[in-house]
């Protein structure tokens, strides 16, 4: 048993937990962070090898079911998902927060874009986002202050195709240094981002907010897997039970608990924390813990070009983003839309995600690898209560704790978005000169939505400040709180929401409401 009693216990040292830890520690709170994985040293532990990156993933068992099973990858270790992220940091659009009102689908958020904008800008600055300050059609771009990266050779070819069609390709917003910043060097465009960035040019929680939190006095415990939150007689979380690096069960008490374990492990932890008082799982009076599990309808689509592109040169977002198809277009058979992101892929990512070919045809294609390049699509997947993260009744992890089981089915709208993203990518690739266009099996990317925020305790798990409706000293700060999925990679948005929640926690503490 640990004897200390800090003010705040943060569970998860990823993108969002580290923002909260750094903010609260800087405000004078005593903070302890429990992280399930180890701490990595980029220069020593990371290599330019797609097979080696697997160690950075959450490799404990999870299961997937439903008509269209999905299990998007997540990270484990100090830095969490930001160890393996592509660092794409596009802003959400204002329409993302009002899809029910504007388009009759999904649901409206209890926050709007204007409310979130200052926090987006703050995270862009503190985390280090490079990109154009103005986005397509005048939407806000990155306000982090770092200039955009140059567009890679592949990117210029794809942008040329898009421009021929009258579209508006743009350099992307990425949390990768385009010049030395934050004590870290500029990117050398080595082609490996999701394998762990050796040079540390890519921002991760581990090289930004985590050290900031530790400098401000936060204590980080690694290899601490939290499996249960226990409540006291008043219905407040009293202790987090975890298995430490030596496999012993420990208890961490605190006044406030912040769960930032991402949209699969967060609902798993709450459901595994059922008690007589919270019989359906902690903070689950609404029954919505684990419901509305959302992923981005995603496909990798490539063209084979007459001349070599050597598309492995650059960073994973080969720095062309097309958002002309982001908003709802009444001519489509679906609502909402998607972002197209050019993709710099080493061979494994290309072979696994970029094609379904096999046999002799697959090997013929791989011999054309250097002639191929294309897009990674990020469509908006709509919330659906039947898509869930639940406890698997049959499978337990090495600790004996029930694992998370995802259940997922694409909606008709999701399928429309997928089709649209394939068709529009094909148009651009053909306009850019591709001799042949091919794509891999549709996948789900990113996990979101499993502890939705809202004002109504019957229809949401947390309030707009990420505070659990039913448990006053419990906050959830990660993509679990998303009401809709947006049509962009979710990390920046989630961090901005976490930054806002952390500020609100400080305010609540100062007025004695924590």
């Amino acid at each position, binding site marked *: 048993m640990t004897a200390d009693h800090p003010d705040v216990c943060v569970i998860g040292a990823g993108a969002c937990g580290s923002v909260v830890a750094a903010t609260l520690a800087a405000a004078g709170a005593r903070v302890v962070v429990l992280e399930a994985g180890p701490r990595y040293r980029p220069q020593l532990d990371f*290599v*330019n*090898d*797609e*097979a080696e990156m697997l160690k950075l993933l959450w490799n404990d*068992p999870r*299961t997937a079911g439903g*008509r269209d*099973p999905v299990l998007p990858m997540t990270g484990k270790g100090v830095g969490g998902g930001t160890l393996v992220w592509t660092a794409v940091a596009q802003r959400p659009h204002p329409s993302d927060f009002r899809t029910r009102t504007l388009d009759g689908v999904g649901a409206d958020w209890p926050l709007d874009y204007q409310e979130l904008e200052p926090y987006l800008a703050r995270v862009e600055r503190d985390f280090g986002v490079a990109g154009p300050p103005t986005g397509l059609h005048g939407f806000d771009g990155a306000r982090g202050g770092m200039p955009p990266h*140059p*567009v*890679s*050779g592949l*990117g*210029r*070819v794809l942008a040329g195709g898009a421009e021929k069609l009258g579209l508006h390709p743009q350099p992307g917003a990425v949390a990768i240094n385009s010049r030395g910043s934050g004590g870290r060097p500029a*990117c*050398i*465009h*080595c*082609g*490996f981002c999701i394998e762990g960035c*050796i*040079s540390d040019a890519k921002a991760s929680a581990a090289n930004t907010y985590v050290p900031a939190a530790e400098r401000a006095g936060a204590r980080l415990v690694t290899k601490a897997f939290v499996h249960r939150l226990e409540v006291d007689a008043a219905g407040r979380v009293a202790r987090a039970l975890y298995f430490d690096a030596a496999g012993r069960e420990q208890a961490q008490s605190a006044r406030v608990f912040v769960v930032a374990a991402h949209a699969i492990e967060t609902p798993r932890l709450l459901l595994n924390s059922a008690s007589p008082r919270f019989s359906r799982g902690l903070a689950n009076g609404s029954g919505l813990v684990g419901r509305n599990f959302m992923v981005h309808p995603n496909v990798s689509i490539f063209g084979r070009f007459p*001349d*070599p*592109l*050597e598309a*492995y*040169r*650059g960073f994973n977002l080969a720095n062309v983003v097309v958002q002309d198809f982001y908003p709802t277009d009444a001519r489509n058979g679906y609502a909402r839309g998607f972002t197209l992101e050019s993709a710099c892929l*080493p*061979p*494994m990512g*290309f*072979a*696994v995600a970029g094609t*379904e070919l*096999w*046999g*002799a045809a*697959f*090997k013929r294609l*791989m*011999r054309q*690898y*250097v002639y191929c390049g294309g897009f990674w699509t990020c469509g908006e997947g709509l919330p659906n209560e039947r898509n869930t993260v639940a406890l698997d009744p049959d*499978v337990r992890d090495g600790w004996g704790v029930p694992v998370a089981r995802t259940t997922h089915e694409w909606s008709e709208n999701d399928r429309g978005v997928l089709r649209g993203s394939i068709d529009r990518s094909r148009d651009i690739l053909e306009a850019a000169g591709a001799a042949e266009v091919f794509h891999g*099996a549709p996948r789900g990317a990113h996990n979101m939505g499993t502890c939705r925020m809202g004002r109504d305790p019957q229809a949401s798990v947390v309030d707009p400040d990420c505070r659990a409706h039913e448990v006053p000293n419990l906050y959830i700060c990660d993509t679990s709180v998303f009401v809709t999925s947006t049509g962009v990679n979710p990390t920046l948005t989630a961090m901005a929401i976490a930054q806002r929640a952390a500020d609100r926690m400080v305010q609540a503490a100062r007025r004695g409401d924590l």
Partner: protein
Amino acid sequence: VNTEGFTDGERECLRHLARTLLPSDEDAGADELGVAEVIEAKVLAAPNLLAVYRRGLVTLDATSRRRHGHPFAALDAGQQAALVGDLQAGRDPEDLWEGTGRRFFLLVRSDVVFVYATDPEVWAAIGFPGPSHGRGGYPDAEKLPHER
């Protein structure tokens, strides 16, 4: 039944499935890369994955027996390819897969091509120069090959 891993029959089925997905030609295929052995080692460390593989291989053999009277490993290459094509397309004329055939295809395909595309000798064969960080990355990434 070998509870430690695959049965001999399952192992043989996997070897032929891997070879169908990744044949040997002028560069390495599943046999030379030891793909089936790599996959078996991987699934032994993940009990729920082992169960998925075993169920899939058993069903593949059952489908093969129903269709041709022999296990998958005893079919000729054309018959094996036709069966894999059915899995990929989600076709199940024998009605044995309960909707899991395409998912099993995608799982095995992914595991097979992973071994292929992370092999340094394969990189050389397809023109991928491998790790670049130690060589300074690509400061000229904005240039296409013909512009350098």
